[in-house]
């Protein structure tokens, strides 16, 4: 017997005969019934406000825009406020590449010590102020990790209330190699429990929320 058979045989020796798959699936689904009784409520009635409150609480900074076209100017404001040069690694996503970046020099590659990366969030989740990114041809994972400042554009129509809503929203799509929920800038409490930002990933997470992305 190989290890796989040994393990499965040992399990079946203890758990008994397998029940019909449909019965197991129904039981699993029932365990998720009425999710509202077992999860925290939102921080505010409105999604954008609930998201913003939670995101701010974990150290994410937030800017609000009306339209996608305003994104480059908002990035510029952020760079200026942080005293950063006008050069960013830009996610090669159509929604961002199609914008007029004016005086900001954008590049697709991510240097090992990249100062700023600008990307597009796939989803926002209001429950904990999380942003979701999916890896893909137009989204290198390292943009979110090698950079010191990670700037994510979040379209408000991509806001979801709870974690389960995200699971539901993506369940019929092919799973990407990486689906990453980002909740605040990188941090550690490994030295005497004291909190330090920017352990390995970004020390700064800045979200630009766009109310109306129909100009995309």
């Amino acid at each position: 017997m190989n290890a796989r058979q040994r393990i499965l045989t040992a399990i079946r020796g203890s758990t008994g005969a397998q029940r019909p798959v449909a019965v197991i699936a129904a039981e699993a689904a029932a365990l998720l019934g009425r999710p509202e009784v077992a999860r925290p409520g939102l921080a505010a009635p409105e999604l954008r406000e609930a998201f913003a409150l939670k995101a701010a609480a974990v150290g994410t900074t937030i800017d609000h825009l009306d339209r996608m076209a305003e994104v480059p100017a908002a990035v510029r404001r952020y760079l200026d406020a942080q005293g950063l040069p006008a050069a960013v690694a830009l996610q090669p996503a159509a929604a961002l590449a199609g914008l007029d970046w004016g005086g900001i020099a954008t590049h697709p590659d991510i240097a090992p010590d990249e100062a700023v990366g600008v990307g597009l969030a796939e989803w926002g989740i209001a429950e904990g102020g999380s942003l979701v990114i999916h890896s893909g041809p137009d989204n290198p994972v390292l943009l979110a990790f090698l950079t010191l400042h990670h700037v994510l554009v979040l379209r408000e129509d991509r806001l979801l209330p709870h974690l389960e809503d995200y699971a539901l929203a993506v369940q019929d799509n092919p799973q990407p190699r990486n689906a990453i929920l980002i909740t605040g800038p990188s941090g550690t409490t490994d030295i005497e429990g004291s909190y330090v930002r920017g352990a390995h990933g970004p020390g700064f997470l800045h979200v630009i929320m766009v109310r109306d992305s129909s100009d995309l």
Partner: protein
Amino acid sequence: MSAAAQPGFKARAAAELSNAALKVAIERTTGNAERKRAAAVAAFPEFDAARERGRAIKDHVIAHLDHYLEMFERNATAAGAKVHWASDDAEARAIVTRICLDADARLVTRAKSMLGEEIGLPHALADAGIERVETDLAEHIIQLAGERPSHIVWPAMHRTREQVADLFKAGHHPPPAADDPGTMVQSARRELRAKFLGADVGISGANFLVADTGATCTVTNEGNAELTTTPPRIHIVTAGIEKIVPSTAHAFALLRLLVRSATGGELTQYTTFHCGPKRPGDADGPEEMHIVLVDNGRTRMLGDEFREMLRCIRCGACMNHCVVYRQIGGHAYGGTYPGPMGAVLTPVLDGLAASRDLPHACTMNGRCAEVCPVGIPIPTLLRAWRRRSWRAGLENGVPRLAIGVWAMAARRPRLYRLASRVGVRALRLFGRRGWIRSLPLAGGWTAYRDLPRPAGRTFMEQYRANQAAKGARR
């Protein structure tokens, strides 16, 4: 490493108790964790319902573990990952080492995984001549110190910032400019960045294995996991078979419990699902993904009285709230997993004979079970080990004899009353003015505290005398 190869538990505990710096370090980390967890639970009125749900999810998975493992294997394979199965630690080590050697790997980065520690992966890689770089900050600290984790969430919690500064000064090039945590973290960031990008293989653990997608899930704060799993050519996951959940939504239900119980946060900074290797056209990611599913005693637990321990989601709340752990720290336990959960698991992994002290070195105060996010009755499980130890004859000598004599008397009420009467009178001879300062055979007590001197006559004597007097008056 087995507990038997080290000095005994009592000797280790005594050594740690005399380490004043350790006490300070433990108190800072666990005290913080305790306060923050309490605040997080207070801010989550649905916590008890969530906990009940988490327990039910784990029990459901454990009852159908074969079904979910096969489902996971199917979906992970379909996503392009290679799934391996390991019956024990040796098989798991051999699989991982073989993958690394076949790939001519020289440099391996590793994101913190307690399972990796459990199966002895660090030593196995070293023995195979492969450079291993721990990327979690705490693991980086203990790698520099040549130590093992002392806590499952904060592996370096036994180290004060001054001690970390010394390690970094010797181990970082250039050394950090100052010894405040901020400067030291930046130094580690610089030091490790080249390693992340130069590694041939990245090894991570998994907090969840999602059956219906075939994804593995890591839950981290630093971002080191993604930097470990993305740049190298090969990503290897080692995970215990009990980490399975039916779906992503089930993982989320447990995630809410895990993070609050571990750190008092609501979510970690990064909750990442890894599903297969890099897809065609993907901008980055590994070309191969291997998942090693490890049994190492878990199927045995499934069949015995320790089954409930398979619910454990490794949050560490039990140790943060344990009076014993908070005095002696994690290394004294001698196994991979310290604290209350470790006292249940170490006898499974290292054998009861080598670790029989662990289930006994507990006051049975129940606080671990009270804070456990999946309702594991840890004291009951420790009691089960005590029962096995008693039956196996591992509890010997004077204590066993004493229990035998006492139990013989306790089953004979008249004899017991007589023995008590004689006993309290004898005991009074050792004391003066209310207290006994030193008592033969009770040095464990009187070395550290005084013993109240018995009042003189037992309750039963006095009560029976009163009753007799009442009867005479009537």
